[in-house]
């Protein structure tokens, strides 16, 4: 049993090794690159699942997590190590990340077929998976931050994978910079923690917080800074703007980013450092409210988008908001449970949508519809995912969302509760809107409806498996709460469950009425809502706001500094340099070039010197 624990480091290491191998030899492997990546990720996934039972036994027996590490850096007397720490939280994350990554990679074999940089794609995917796994098992803040940034790097590389597209490059850059704003928050939190405690270890920090060594204001500041990092990675309002643009990447990348890796890291971080948040009521309030606002805002924006991949992107923001909301009202279990189920059904939705994109070659709702006749399996998997997302029992999303709503209601904060329930209604509407418009209605596709087929088998298999997961994972709430040891999934009786379900059904019904009944379409909704709809459609002008309020002033400042550097500082320096020249010019006038004059001056000087010396000598 311990033997398996001793090789737990292989879980993150194998995908990283795959990355190294693919970087060195990828171009020679060609199509084999995918299988190498899948093999290594697969072994890691199997290992992650097998670890569950011995590690949780170890956790219960020893009352502390399994730890393994090696000294990486010596700073004075502080030793920073890299390694593996297996807590309940990590044990939950490892299978989620590795299994989803494995399925996405299998799917990508079909999706990316024929791409010129096929091996490179799988190299990045391996690095992405490995970094996320290494992040998850971190025993200290330094390792967490290292792989936190590596995850960011991978998303940069993958979003910008199709480098010929200017849009992709811009989106990649935006993702990196916006998340980096959050990262700086996390970094400052780490620095402050290190300055206060002299350690990077989670255990030491949490102990310092719980033993009230650190001041209340200080803890709140640290918690908020950490949350800034989490909000950046998990695309919470107002740092969510990168996520929809990240749709420029290939769809498997989107699936990976949105389901298991990148965005999950933020929620994971808050759950991991939950004791710090728990020590500050203000920080908890902020987390809960930001979560609820993100959930609601993103859901409203999702209503009006015509790029269906973007709708799902906003849906991710919205669902991540739910997770933050769950954590913010104090239930790690609810938040992490929703993270688990969401990972499965969101991956499924992306893969299904990806299959449509792969076949129809468009992401615009206006250009494609009525695919039911051609892509029945895809449609079915999509609707399973949609049911899970909208929270219809017994699909996965119902159980976890119910847990969060129950936690909110039991905390008694009605503002949060209203936002939470409203979002349920909106969620159901926007996801079924896509479903109805994509698969029903007029039969058309941009390159000819006749050319559309079911996606290749390699893509269908992962979709099928995930569909099963979207149905099944909801029943593992008990296991998850036992694993985390953070209390059961909150329950608040039938009322919440029924209300949520009814709201979801209303949403579905509204979507049905709007999009499948003739004579009543989106135009009517837009007319009905008027400027509100435009606000949804324009994403509340947040991007424009950033452009006008942040980006342009910064660039203007940069241009100003560039000018000033040349005009003021450099000119000052140049003038100092020119001054001796000018003085020289002046003095040079006295140089007539006439030897007689020089001699005369010399003679007079000698006379004066003699006089001075005579007077001086006579004294």
């Amino acid at each position: 049993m311990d033997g398996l624990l001793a090789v737990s480091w292989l879980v993150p290491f194998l995908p990283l090794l795959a990355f190294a191998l693919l970087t060195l030899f990828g171009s020679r492997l060609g199509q084999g690159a995918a299988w190498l990546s899948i093999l290594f990720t697969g072994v890691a996934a199997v290992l992650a699942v097998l670890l569950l039972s011995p590690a949780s036994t170890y956790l219960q027996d020893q009352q502390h997590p399994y730890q393994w590490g090696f000294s990486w850096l010596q700073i004075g007397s502080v030793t920073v190590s890299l390694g593996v720490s297996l807590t309940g939280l990590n044990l939950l994350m490892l299978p989620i990340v590795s299994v989803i990554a494995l399925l996405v990679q299998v799917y990508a074999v079909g999706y990316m077929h024929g791409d010129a940089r096929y091996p490179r794609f799988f190299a990045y995917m391996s690095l992405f998976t490995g970094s996320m796994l290494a992040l998850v098992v971190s025993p200290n803040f330094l390792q967490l931050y290292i792989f936190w940034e590596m995850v960011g790097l991978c998303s940069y590389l993958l979003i910008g994978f199709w480098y010929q597209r200017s849009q992709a490059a811009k989106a990649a850059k935006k993702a990196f910079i916006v998340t980096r704003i959050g990262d700086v928050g996390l970094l400052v939190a780490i620095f402050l923690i290190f300055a206060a405690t002299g350690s990077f270890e989670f255990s030491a920090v949490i102990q310092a917080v719980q033993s009230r060594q650190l001041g209340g204001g200080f803890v709140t500041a640290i918690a908020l800074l950490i949350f800034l990092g989490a909000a950046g990675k998990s695309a919470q309002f107002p740092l969510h703007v990168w996520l929809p643009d990240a749709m420029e990447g290939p769809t498997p990348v989107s699936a990976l980013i949105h389901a298991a890796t990148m965005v999950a890291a933020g929620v994971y971080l808050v759950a991991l450092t939950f004791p710090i948040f728990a020590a500050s009521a203000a920080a908890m309030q902020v987390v809960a409210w930001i979560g609820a606002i993100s959930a609601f805002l993103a859901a409203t924006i999702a209503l009006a988008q015509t790029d269906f991949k973007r709708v799902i992107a906003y849906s991710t923001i919205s669902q991540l908001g739910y997770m933050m909301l769950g954590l913010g009202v104090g239930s790690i279990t609810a938040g992490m449970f929703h993270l688990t189920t969401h990972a499965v059904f969101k991956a499924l939705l992306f893969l299904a949508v990806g299959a449509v994109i792969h076949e129809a070659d468009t992401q615009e709702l206006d250009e494609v519809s009525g695919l039911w006749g051609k892509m029945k399996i895809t449609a079915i998997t999509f609707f399973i995912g949609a049911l899970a997302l909208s929270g219809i029992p017994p699909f996965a999303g119902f159980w976890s969302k119910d847990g969060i709503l129950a936690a909110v209601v039991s905390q008694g904060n009605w503002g949060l509760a209203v936002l939470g329930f409203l979002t349920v209604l909106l969620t159901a509407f926007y996801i079924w809107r896509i479903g109805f418009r994509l698969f029903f209605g007029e039969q058309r596709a941009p390159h000819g409806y006749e050319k559309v087929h079911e996606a290749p088998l390699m893509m269908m298999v992962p979709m099928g498996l995930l569909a099963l997961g979207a149905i099944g994972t909801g029943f593992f709430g008990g296991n998850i709460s036992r694993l985390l040891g953070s209390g059961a999934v909150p329950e608040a009786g039938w009322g919440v469950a029924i209300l949520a379900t009814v709201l979801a059904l209303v949403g579905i019904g509204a979507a049905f009425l709007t999009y499948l009944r003739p004579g009543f379409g989106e135009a009517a909704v837009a007319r009905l809502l008027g400027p509100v709809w435009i606000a949804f459609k324009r994403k509340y002008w947040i991007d424009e706001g950033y452009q006008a309020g942040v980006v342009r002033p910064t660039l203007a400042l940069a241009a100003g500094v560039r000018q000033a550097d040349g005009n003021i500082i450099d000119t000052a320096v140049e003038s100092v340099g020119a001054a001796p020249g000018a003085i020289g010019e002046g003095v040079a006038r006295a140089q007539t070039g006439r030897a007689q004059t020089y001699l005369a001056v010399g003679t007079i000087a000698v006379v004066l010197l003699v006089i001075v010396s005579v007077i001086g000598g006579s004294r």
Partner: protein
Amino acid sequence: MNLLLVAVGLPLLGAVAGAFLPSRSAALWRWWGVGFSLAALVAAVLVAVQFDMGQGSLQMRLSLPWVPLFGVTFGVGINGISLPLLLLSAVVFCAAFASFGWIEERQKEYALWLLVMECGLLGLFVATDLILFFVFFEVVLIPSYFLVGIFGRGNREHTAIKFVTYTGVASAVLLISFVLLAFTAARYGGGNLTTDIPALTQAMGAAEARIPAGLQTALFLAMALAFMVKMPIFPLHSWAPDVYRDAPIPVAAVLSGVMSKMGAYGILRIAVPLLPAAASQASWLLGLLGVISILYGAIAALGQKDLRLLLAYSSMSHMGVLLLGIASLNTVGLQGAVFQMVSHGLIIPGLFFVVGLIGLRAQSYDLQELGGLWQRSPRLMGVFLVLGLAALGLPLTSGFIAEFQAFAGAFRASQLQVLSFIGVLGFIFSASYILWMVERTAYGPLPPRLEQASIRDVTAMEWVSPLVLVLLVVAVGVFPALVGTPLTPSLGELLRGLGG
């Protein structure tokens, strides 16, 4: 024979012996330079092999009387702080010689001057006497004048004169403060006049209480000023953009990579240990200038259109991080500073090499005329990206480990906390300008002008310099102990002297 002298002497031997050879073929001079710089590198590696990692004091010490009247010695020695820099210099010079292709005429002069410069830099990092240090300081300056003035582009004479005058004034200040320091130590310490650094450190330590605080502060600030010009630090930077823009690429690489470290090394190795009280008094000022440099450099870089100017300001921003690390005056920060010297010393020459190769291909350094090069030159762009990411402090590259430690140290130093909060914003700006630079160069469609040009990927000879640097950047990032192990005891020694 002292191995340090071998390492320092080999480039000089190459320069002197080469002067007697006819200047016939360009290839001869390339291999001449590569040969001697490689030999110096081998000697430096042997130094590292023989170095006792557990010991913090000076090793391989050699001290001969030079000008006994003034107590000037010809002293060399090495410790954990100078060892990484010695190796770094040797590596960067090898890379500079290997990337010879930019020099199209007068190769002999070029190779010989560069060898003289290497001698000066290697010597500087092992000198243990103030006057010897100063001599090497100047030995570096003179070749750089010719290398920029003869082989540069654009308004190169003006640039060379500006550079030499600016840093020459700083050198004068430095020499005066060195001499004053030696006299101060002799006067208040009661001992003989000496310029030997270890002896001076002891004398200053013993006499510290008796020396007027104002004098100490003035001496420290004078030295810091002179050293900050070399780094460069805001507002003493205005020579740097011109030089980094006009110098030939290998020279720009050497100047930005290694010569700029002379200043930081001087502060860390001379100004701080000799005047610890003044150093802790003035640390807020160093921190302030460091933070201003970080932000100013980064914002100015964001506004540049010329790739080489962008690198110049980026370099200044990184030097700010270095200074902030030094200003923290604690283990973490100082370790970060040394890491930053090594890291930046590897990254920025690499970036200059890559940018030079881009310039060779696109015939332009203007970001507005570039783009899409990933399609034509994927290997080059890959290296570019890795180096850029290292420059913005991405983990698992040397840049992260350096900046992380420097800032962690600054946050630990109570006098710098507020400044550090502001300085951290540099992380965001650096990400912005680096990614913008990469985006404008590598991503997107090829501009029509470049569509016509036949742009090849890198050749083996072009490839080797940046590749070696990239590998070292990643190696230091993944195994920071490479730099950290020899460093820890020496920093401990230094901090004991500070009473910390």
